[in-house]
């Protein structure tokens, strides 16, 4: 308690020197929390969007389906059993039939993934209600990225060619009835969505599907022979790995910022111990043990981080709150990198994040303050009183 009181007095007495360190340290606090908040916000948004748009409550994959092996696609389909069809009717499952195809926008050849989905499904947020039958051709919806890459607009017709279950090529025109916007690129890039029944008819696979998406609300999970259930942990593994990679990158910022702040504290401590030898000697003469003086100097250094936390709260909390509300706009074209990322990321700050960061800074500052302060224990008090350099 005495060390706290004296340390506070010393820091307040040192005025500018104290506040320069505190400002640097508070900047480290704010930037570390902000950066981690951005990563958290992105993580939450990416998970939310992926669940809403792509994976629902989990997916059943036809046992041959392997999204990373294009050659497996033509064998990755199976008839839906009555149980499955019943669940589809009840809105618990959304079947998707996937086949490889080729699109010819403006005479160019573009490989695509042709996907059939029921226009009535409500399991994922894909706007399938636009896929109503059109007398003028096969209705199709595509994402903004596919539309931009292929210069397609609503109302355009584009030729697609596919192979049916027997390996026979066929072609037809699809009409772009809607262009949707999504933060999940894997639902957009080079994908053409058409009505499920039409796709089954075109491919000669009536009543068949490649994957079944479960509704996230129902917690649906039954065993279907020939279908493998993939849960969130599996389906979100790519996002998790990407966020972890970004977190590692963020750690570099963290280390650089902390090093700068800690260097300032370390320098201050070394300078203090060098400059304040008379003061150290005086404390000992007045009745402090050398260990108590070491504690005093360590607390003094560590108290920088407490003051920095207070200062960071004063100016950082409104700034971080504003950023959390207004968000951080990503540069144009970021979503073209294939990352599940929104146009605007809203940082998410948790109590654990703030307390964790504060504790790390506090502990590091204490250690950095203690290291030079240990020298005091080796000082000769009589030399210290005279300010003799030791």
């Amino acid at each position: 308690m005495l060390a706290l009181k004296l340390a506070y007095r010393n820091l307040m007495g040192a005025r500018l020197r104290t506040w320069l360190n505190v400002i640097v340290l508070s900047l480290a606090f704010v930037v570390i929390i902000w950066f981690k908040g951005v990563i958290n916000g992105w993580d939450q948004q990416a998970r939310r969007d992926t669940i809403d748009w792509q994976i629902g409550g989990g997916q059943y994959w036809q046992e041959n389906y392997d999204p990373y092996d294009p050659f497996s696609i033509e064998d990755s389909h199976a008839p839906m059993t009555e149980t499955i069809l019943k669940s589809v009717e009840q809105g618990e499952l959304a079947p998707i039939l996937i086949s490889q195809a080729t699109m010819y926008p403006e005479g160019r050849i573009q490989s695509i993934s042709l996907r059939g989905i029921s226009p009535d499904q409500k399991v994922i947020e894909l706007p399938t209600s636009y896929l109503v039958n059109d007398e003028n051709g096969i209705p199709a919806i595509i994402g903004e990225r596919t539309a931009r890459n292929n210069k397609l607009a609503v109302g355009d017709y584009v030729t697609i060619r596919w192979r049916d279950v027997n390996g026979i090529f066929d072609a037809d025109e699809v009409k772009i009835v809607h262009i949707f916007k999504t933060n999940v690129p894997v639902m957009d890039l080079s994908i053409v969505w058409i009505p499920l029944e039409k796709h089954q008819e075109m491919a000669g696979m009536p009543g068949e599907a490649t994957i079944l998406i479960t509704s996230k609300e129902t917690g649906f999970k039954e065993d279907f022979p020939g279908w493998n259930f993939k849960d969130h942990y599996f389906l979100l593994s790519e996002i998790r790995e990407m966020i972890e990679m970004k977190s590692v990158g963020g750690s570099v910022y963290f280390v650089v910022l902390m090093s700068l702040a800690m260097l300032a504290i370390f320098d201050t401590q070394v300078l203090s111990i060098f400059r304040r030898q008379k003061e150290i000697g005086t404390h000992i003469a007045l009745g402090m043990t050398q260990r108590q003086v070491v504690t005093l100097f360590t607390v003094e250094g560590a108290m920088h981080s407490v003051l920095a936390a207070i200062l960071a709260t004063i100016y950082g909390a409104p700034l971080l709150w504003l950023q959390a509300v207004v968000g951080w706009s990503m540069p144009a074209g970021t979503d073209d990198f294939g990352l599940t990322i929104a146009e605007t990321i809203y940082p998410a700050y948790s109590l654990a994040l703030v307390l964790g960061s504060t504790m790390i800074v506090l502990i590091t500052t204490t250690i950095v303050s203690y290291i030079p302060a240990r020298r005091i224990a080796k000082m000769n008090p009589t030399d210290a009183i005279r300010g003799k350099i030791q």
Partner: protein
Amino acid sequence: MMKNGQLITIQNLIKDYPVGRGFFRALNDINLTIGEGEFAGLIGPSGSGKTTLLNIIGSLDVPTKGEAKVLGQSIGNLNTRQSAKLRNHSLGFIFQTYNLLPVYNVFENVELPLLLLKMSKDERRKLVDQALDWVGLQDKRKSRPPQLSGGECQRVSIARAMVKSPQIVLADEPTANLDAKNSHNILQTMEKLNEELKTTFIFATHDDKVIQYLHRKISLDDGHVVNDEQIKKQ
């Protein structure tokens, strides 16, 4: 334990400092007793050992051989905590360069020893006010050391040494940085406190202005006590 009001007993004290492969003998066979309420001075030229002896009495240093007993405690046998406790409770220090904490104001500097004694706020305020009255610095209580003259700084230093009413005050060249007028003021203040509070003052000095105030002169030369003279004051 103390005998016949003797606060300090020094017997056959030797203090050596290592120098290269050998050593330098700063104090050689010192024998002394200093009693309660004395106003004594260790006098002698530079290098005679007076500051070394003062430091040993103040438990800031330890003898190489022999014994130094202060308030019944053998300095050489005290651990760091015990010697800190002795200084904290019973000893006051006045330094040549004042050694005030520059970031504290006068009040806070004088209050510091009481904080170490864990006194209550009210008690601290009362004792600091009293000490500032003794040295006539009530009007400077909010000033910081850089705003004070040398004489004022030394008066703060006296107040800090006296605030806890120690049994012994050790003053190392207290007037070395002061002009004649300030030196006399300081010495008169200390003499007054010695008379009123019966606090033992021990000086280490070679300043004639100090020497003329002493009631006892212990002359040191080359680490030996060469003369020990009681002065009758009128």
